């Protein structure tokens, strides 16, 4: 946190600005106090070297008055912010602790209060208490309370929902300690951001009240009241108004910079800075794949802007009508590989490949949008997030068909109903008029498959299509995919972390580890547990099944995969591999064909060498 703070120039600038104003607030009355108060006959003077902002109706120097007003203004802002923070956080924490009923009522009260404009609330307070420094502070402080209260309850609720809080309750930690140990430390940073925002808001509001003449009253004066007086003579002499205006802008800016800087530091994702587009050498095409392959990825890499390869030169091909499985653990790059083939990588990632094609669509170039949309169908992981929640299903399902297939709305709807029925979605006509959230998860995924198949794609890419589903629904969805493959000959690329899911419907499997392919093998061998690569073997041994022996523990893989930015020079699996020798750490093993599969492992060559030695 501290490092992030130091790295934010906005925050540093803001803090420096604020420090300057604080120093000014302390020393100004001693330096300019006399000039600010002394009445002279030099009234309404224009700005000059003598009087930087001119003089007012009583001949007092406005620059001096502006400087001296800093102290009162800052003190008022401070008091206001303190009232808002203490009152708001206290109220928020209190209704959070008080239990669900009080909380619901309290939140509703906050909602009402927060929507009432603070200036008008302040005017009411002035009407009751009469204008003055105290009234302004109390009024603006109270008006800012609801914002703090709302943030406190929202944050506390989000933290309280986390498992470590409920666990602490079970451990017998008292509510007060819960608040102090677990909740407040975890919400301190956003509250700090709000604190700086509240300071800026107070400055605006307090000056505003004084400017309207209902805030600070003579003989006291703050920036707002100095500006108020300046406005009167603005036609003759702009500086009495311009000067205080500039000071208020600068102070507001300092507060704003602090708030922005803090917010960025608290939420590193928002302030993340990355150099864009590190240079990556283009790969030259060498056609080393079967000519009849439907989809080809040749030395495909997926690259971060800083040059880190999340996927590192993977090559594979999908034959027409084939169901290819892509299996790997989180961070293996399997989904990115699939999204590169779908030309749907996130905006900050980039695919580089010798060849990347589906059918005769060259994905390295700029393929026509309509063919991309219709020839590649995609089924996403989370059916609850992959449909637009604000649009009805009908429009979403038929959109590709209507946009690219030159199909009328009616015809598209008819086809959608047929396809939904084929995917065994109940009441297909009715579904078109429903919103996604009105369907169950399983129904949504069926609808997603129907949507993907609606344009009769050549290749269906299914990215973890069953991970979010129950096991019985998973079996049905896998059945649907296999059915589409057998009925229409649609080739499928199925991505999954689950060896069982891959085994269920694939013809061939590609195993990925740390952004690279370590092995490809026909599915029969995977099912039989006959893999060559130590990683694949370890993965199979770690996977519990319904018939693996239960009396011995599953073998686990010690350590964890390397970060893509620090992938070792040699085999990425070497640090965790029981067979690894020095060669594995130094040399990158290449994918080499061994019988019915291909494996990237030095150990396979040793066997031969060892045998030769024996012979």
């Amino acid at each position, binding site marked *: 946190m501290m490092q992030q703070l130091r790295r934010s120039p906005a925050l540093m600038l803001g803090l420096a600005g604020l420090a300057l104003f604080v120093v000014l607030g302390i020393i100004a009355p001693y330096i300019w106090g006399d000039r600010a108060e002394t009445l002279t006959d030099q009234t309404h003077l224009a700005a000059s070297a003598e009087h930087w902002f001119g003089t007012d109706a009583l001949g007092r120097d406005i620059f001096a008055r502006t400087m001296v007003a800093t102290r009162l203004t800052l003190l008022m802002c401070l008091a206001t912010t303190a009232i808002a923070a203490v009152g708001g956080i206290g109220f928020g924490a209190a209704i959070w602790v008080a239990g669900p009923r009080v909380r619901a009522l309290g939140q509703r009260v906050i909602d009402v209060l927060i929507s009432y404009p603070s200036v008008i609330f302040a005017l009411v307070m002035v009407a009751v208490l009469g204008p003055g420094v105290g009234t302004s502070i109390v009024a603006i402080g109270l008006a800012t309370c609801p914002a703090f209260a709302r943030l406190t309850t929202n944050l506390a609720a989000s933290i309280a929902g986390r498992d470590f809080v409920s666990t602490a309750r079970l451990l017998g930690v008292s509510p007060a300690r819960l608040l102090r140990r677990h909740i407040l430390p975890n919400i301190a940073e956003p509250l700090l951001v709000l604190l700086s925002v509240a300071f800026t808001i107070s400055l605006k509001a307090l*000056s505003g009240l004084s400017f309207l003449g209902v805030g600070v009253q003579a003989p006291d004066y703050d920036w707002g009241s100095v500006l108020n007086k300046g406005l009167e003579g603005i036609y003759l002499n702009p500086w009495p108004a311009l000067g205080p205006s500039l000071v208020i802008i600068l102070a*507001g800016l300092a507060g704003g910079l602090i708030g922005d800087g803090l917010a960025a530091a608290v939420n590193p994702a928002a302030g993340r800075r990355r150099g864009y587009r590190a240079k990556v050498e283009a790969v030259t095409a060498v056609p080393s794949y079967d000519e009849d392959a439907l989809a080809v990825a040749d030395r495909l890499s997926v690259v971060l802007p800083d040059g880190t390869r999340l996927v590192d030169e993977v090559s594979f091909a999908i034959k027409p009508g084939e169901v290819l499985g892509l299996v790997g653990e989180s961070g293996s790059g399997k989904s990115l590989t699939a999204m590169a083939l779908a030309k749907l990588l996130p905006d900050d990632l980039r695919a580089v490949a010798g060849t990347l094609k589906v059918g005769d669509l060259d994905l390295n170039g700029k393929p026509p949008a309509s063919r991309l949309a219709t020839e590649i169908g995609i089924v996403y992981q989370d059916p609850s997030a992959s449909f637009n929640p604000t649009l009805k299903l009908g429009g979403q399902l038929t959109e590709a068909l209507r946009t690219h297939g030159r199909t009328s709305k009616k015809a598209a709807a008819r086809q959608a109903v047929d396809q939904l029925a084929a995917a065994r979605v109940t009441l297909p006509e009715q579904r078109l008029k429903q919103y996604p959230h009105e369907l169950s998860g399983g129904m949504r995924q069926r609808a997603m498959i129907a949507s993907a198949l609606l344009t009769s794609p050549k290749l269906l890419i299914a990215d973890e299509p069953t991970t979010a589903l129950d096991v019985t629904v998973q079996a049905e969805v896998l059945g649907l995919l296999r059915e589409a493959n057998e009925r229409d000959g649609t080739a499928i690329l199925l991505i999954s972390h689950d060896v069982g899911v891959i085994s269920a419907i694939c013809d061939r499997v590609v195993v990925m580890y740390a952004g690279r392919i370590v092995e490809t093998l026909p599915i029969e061998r995977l099912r039989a547990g006959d893999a060559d690569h130590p990683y694949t073997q370890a993965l199979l041994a770690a996977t519990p099944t319904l018939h693996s022996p239960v009396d011995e523990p599953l073998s686990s893989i010690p350590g964890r995969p390397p970060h893509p930015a620090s992938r070792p020079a040699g085999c990425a699996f070497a640090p965790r591999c029981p067979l690894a020798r020095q060669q594995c750490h130094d040399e990158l093993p290449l994918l080499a064909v061994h019988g019915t599969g291909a494996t990237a492992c030095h150990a396979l060559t040793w066997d031969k060498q060892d045998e030769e030695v024996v012979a």
Partner: protein
Amino acid sequence: METLIASPKAPEPPEPSKAFTPKTVRSPWPRFLLGRLAGLAGVLVMLIVGTFLIVQLIPGDPAQVMAGPDASQAQVERIRQEQGLDQPLFTQFTDYAGGLLEGDLGTSFSSGLPVSEIIANRLPFTAQIALLAVVIALAVSVPLGMAVAVACRGGRRKALDTAFTSVTAVLGSIPEFVLATLLIMFFAIKLNMFPPSGAATLDSMVLPILALTIAPICTLARVVRRETAAVLSMDYMRTAKGRRLKALRLYARHALPNLMTSTLTLGGLVLTGLLGGAVIVEFVFAWPGLGTGVLDALVKRDYPVIQGVVLLLGVLATLLNLLVDVVLGLLDPRSLHGKAGDA
């Protein structure tokens, strides 16, 4: 073993999977509107009690304060009687609330006119600039924020990003009254392009609206930009991109509705804040609306007028919130659930 098996149900055929039973489609609107109307009634009661209390809470003798420091004892007593301050509190409240029900907001001390008439004269002026300001603020900030978010997605165009962030930070932090002062200085006095005050001509609206909208536009544009960036990273946007739509369709049809839900939730506050800003801006430009009305009344301690205007502004803010939530509901029906109660 048997100890484990307490009393499982006798085996029976499994129920048809839950997924196959369609949920009944019932509109959430009646429940939502009913709940909100009830909430609205609650807020109205709160507002009425609040404005009633303005006079009651004046420290010391309210009649004395209302009459002013120089008033004679007889004048104070007359005001006490006129305003019913000598009545029991409950009677005062029922009189006040009863009057409100009949549309009687009381009578101004200073002008002797009914408060309702004063409001009727001034409301159109405030409504003019406030409504225009809301429309302009939304019409400018939403496309601006979206455009910047799209242009800078995934770390592109760092320079534009920095420029947008700094300019909105600077302009957004300028208070309305400072901005108004600067606008007068530049456009009215220096360039003589627009009248500096009054509401005599159409072009006299330009400066007040500018002063009122620039800061909200900056705040909203930043919100829109942030929310757009969040929406663009959503799964359903990737799904939509997978359909290879034209950019305009992708952003307008798929991103905009989702973005408005989150933007309006935050933006609602900015928009109600405009009502407060209007008071200040009216003061600077001598705009004959509710804001100058209430300030004028404050100076003259004209409590019936203060109460009337404050009540009206409160009702307006509440209605604006309701409007925001209705729009939210139209954009995203899910937002209607669980929101029925708040006003």
